[in-house]
């Protein structure tokens, strides 16, 4: 038998080529874009909302000033303290952030932080879903407040000079407490005699914000409303309508988070179609801060194009005294700082 001629391909080169091909194949298989382009995505039964995934440029009222990565995983909520420092709820931590995103001190917690608020005197309030932990400005824990009722899911907090409001998605009510944790009243509970239809919360996204008019704004997500309450719990007004269009609140339960600008306009964040919009106090749409196309990772996760855990995709939004908006995207693990565009 004639011996085969020596090959010019060395074993090392062969392995290197094979390894390269394997890595390329693995990357392609794990790439959401490649998967999205797979034959299965040409689906005659797709739930198609692509018509709502682009924003009319004329409606864009904000421009991105900068963005920064958050220092901890599983970020959920963002709040601003009176000293200008931001506090991020992320996993089992409450992390301080400077305005440029540099992480400061952090407080370790025994359970995931769901939301936080900072009182004007610097006292920190953190919800761990079923209870609130109170920290002084130095980060020393001062008190623990148990929820007034079982099945609590405290998803929003607001701290003022004389009161703390705890939005309880589990019990569909906003608790009004004094600064020592004693319950003074409740807002939003169903009461037809007082004209309160009740909060509807298919998912735990109840939020509460203080408006410059001294009244509170609460998102009634299941009814697609933003409601106005006096601190005593009287329901003054409500606005909002369901729909996929840009002026409405999409899906079954939106908006999921609120912020209030210094001039009284109200900012809403939505899930499903991740977008952030600004409304006048009477409910007229003022403009769009960021549309679905501005959150590509979040939109892919919302569509289900990313494998694995997409449990936490909900945006959060907060404002500063200059009218800048800070948008937390937990999927991209970053905060975007948005500034208003000059109006003509």
């Amino acid at each position: 038998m004639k011996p085969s001629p020596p090959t010019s391909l060395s074993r090392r080169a062969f392995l290197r080529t094979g390894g390269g091909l394997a890595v390329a194949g693995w990357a392609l298989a794990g790439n959401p874009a490649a998967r999205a382009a797979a034959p299965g995505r040409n689906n005659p039964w797709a739930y198609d909302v692509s018509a709502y995934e682009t924003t009319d440029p004329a409606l864009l009222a904000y421009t991105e000033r900068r963005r920064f990565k958050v220092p901890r995983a599983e970020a959920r909520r963002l709040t601003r303290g009176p000293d200008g420092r931001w506090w991020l709820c992320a996993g089992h931590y409450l992390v301080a952030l400077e305005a440029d995103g540099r992480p400061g001190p952090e407080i370790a917690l025994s359970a995931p932080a769901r939301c936080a608020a900072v009182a004007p005197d610097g006292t920190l309030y953190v919800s761990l879903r079923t209870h609130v932990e109170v920290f002084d400005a130095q980060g020393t824990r001062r008190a623990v407040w148990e929820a007034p009722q079982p099945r609590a899911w405290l998803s929003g907090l607001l701290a003022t000079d004389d009161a703390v409001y705890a939005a309880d998605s589990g019990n569909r009510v906003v608790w009004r407490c004094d600064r020592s944790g004693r319950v003074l009243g409740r807002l939003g509970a169903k009461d037809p005699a007082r004209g309160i239809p009740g909060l509807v919360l298919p998912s735990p996204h109840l939020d509460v914000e203080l408006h410059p008019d001294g009244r509170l704004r609460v998102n009634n997500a299941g009814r697609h409303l933003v409601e106005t309450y006096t601190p005593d719990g009287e329901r003054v007004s409500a606005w909002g309508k369901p729909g996929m269009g840009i002026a409405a609140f999409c899906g079954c339960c939106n908006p999921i988070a609120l912020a209030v600008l210094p001039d009284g306009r109200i900012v809403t964040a939505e899930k499903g179609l991740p977008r952030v919009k600004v409304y006048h106090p009477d409910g007229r749409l003022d403009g769009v801060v960021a549309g679905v196309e501005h959150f590509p990772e979040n939109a892919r996760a919302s569509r289900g194009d990313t494998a694995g855990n997409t449990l936490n995709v909900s945006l959060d939004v907060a404002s500063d005294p200059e009218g800048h908006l800070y948008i937390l995207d937990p999927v991209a693990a970053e905060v975007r700082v948005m500034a208003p565009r000059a109006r003509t």
Partner: protein
Amino acid sequence: MTTPPSGNPPLNRRQFLRDGARVAALTGLGALFGLAAPRVARGQKYVWQIDPTRCVYCGQCATACVLKPSAVKCVQSYPICGYCDLCTGYFVPEPNALNTGAENQVCPTAAIERRFIEDPYYEYNINEDLCIGCARCVEGCTRFGNGSFYLQVRHDRCVNCNECSIARVCAGDAFRRVPADQPYYLKTTAHA
């Protein structure tokens, strides 16, 4: 620049392929024993099931199954359902009205039944005889709601093919072999 000659004789292609084939055969044999041993030891039977965390609602379950209609059905996880009036698993993205009109329903076969509970809550049940497993409702529910609708292989229908024809084309690689005595994934955590 030249490479200094090594002491070993050069490896030709035939020797390299022969060695490679031996290594591959031994590795494959080991893997086969490794996979088969625990199953044989327990006498365990396995069936096909869909991991809902990997499902990407590609629609292949409706068309690729050897059964017509498919053995894959939508199931409802009542503990995590929001009982929404505007259920995005039931209604098309912009319904004319929140009623049971066919033009408002997302399901192409009207397999989801909507039942009033109390204002403003509605219960949604799946009629499995009508469901074709297209996952359109699953996508609507998971994207906007809590994800209480999800697909499962129903074992009162599935013929448990050795090579599942849906698993071969599943875009999310969601099909798994699970023990026959635990044949379903029970979804208990809300998506949102």
